[in-house]
């Protein structure tokens, strides 16, 4: 019963955080809401007995990835974000209507479904026998998904090299600026206000 109440509380906070993320005009505020959402998702992971994943969520998502975002926002030296309409005005209502429609569909489908499982959640006996959740997690990770784990490490390496190559400046001045075509430039007032 307590777990259900806590789940509802954290679910509501998660949704509030998500709404804040997509509605804030200032990206730093959006980022803070996103961190809030991640922390609430981590709390739900704790409630779901995914203790290791909850800690990884806080360390990797709310820690490392968010620091990366903050660093890039700082690195780009973006000016003020106020006063500027940052949404596609015409697209907004279409998107909202579609989202509500899909949500209604989801709810209709979920309400008609019965979930059956041969087992009934991690029982205390089972956890005690197998030596804790993290031990079972590690066994499963290295026994059943060893190849995907290695592939994931390769993907991370490739992403790192790709990110470095993309950000690297070319030799002999800023080629990017030379490729700039004045005709394509957004109107000066737009450029000054919105970035």
């Amino acid at each position, binding site marked *: *019963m307590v777990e259900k109440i806590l789940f509802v509380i954290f679910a509501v906070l998660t*949704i509030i955080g998500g709404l804040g993320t*997509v509605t804030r005009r200032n990206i730093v505020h959006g980022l803070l809401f996103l961190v809030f959402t991640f922390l609430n998702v981590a709390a739900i992971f704790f409630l779901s007995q995914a203790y290791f*994943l909850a800690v990884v969520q806080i360390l990797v998502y709310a820690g490392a990835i968010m620091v990366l975002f903050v660093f890039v926002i700082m690195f780009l030296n973006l000016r003020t974000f106020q006063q500027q309409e*940052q949404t596609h005005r015409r697209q907004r209502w279409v998107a909202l209507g579609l989202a509500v429609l899909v*949500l209604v569909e989801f709810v209709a489908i979920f309400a008609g479904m019965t*979930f059956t499982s041969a087992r009934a959640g991690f029982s205390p006996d089972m956890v005690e026998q197998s030596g804790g959740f993290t031990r079972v997690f590690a066994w499963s990770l290295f026994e059943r998904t060893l190849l995907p784990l290695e592939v994931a490490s390769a*993907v991370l390496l490739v992403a790192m090299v790709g990110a470095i190559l993309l950000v690297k400046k070319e030799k002999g001045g800023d080629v990017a600026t030379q490729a700039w075509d004045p005709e394509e430039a957004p109107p000066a007032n737009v450029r000054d206000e*919105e970035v």
Partner: protein
Amino acid sequence: MEPTSATMPIPVDWYLYLSAVLFLIGAVGVLTRRNLFIILFSIELMMNAVNLNLVGFSRFHEDMLGHNFVLFTMAIAAAEAAVGLAIAVALFRNRQTLMVDLFTRMKG
């Protein structure tokens, strides 16, 4: 519909509803916002919604495979964030803006 499991304290369909709402918030964010950063945030939101589902069903079926998949999702999310931010930096150098509807060079 109540799941048949008797000892699981949180019904598995609650996870489904929560993650559906969170995923759709992320989708609306991707569709409506013009700022590249907010779009990247929204993608992270959608990935978290998927993770919630995986964890909920992993508990329901008493199987750790779902947890393993969440770990892979996190690895891919980290890679995606790094490459996405690198693209954002390159774009900002080129065009001095991050509003996605101003990137029209490839428009046919």
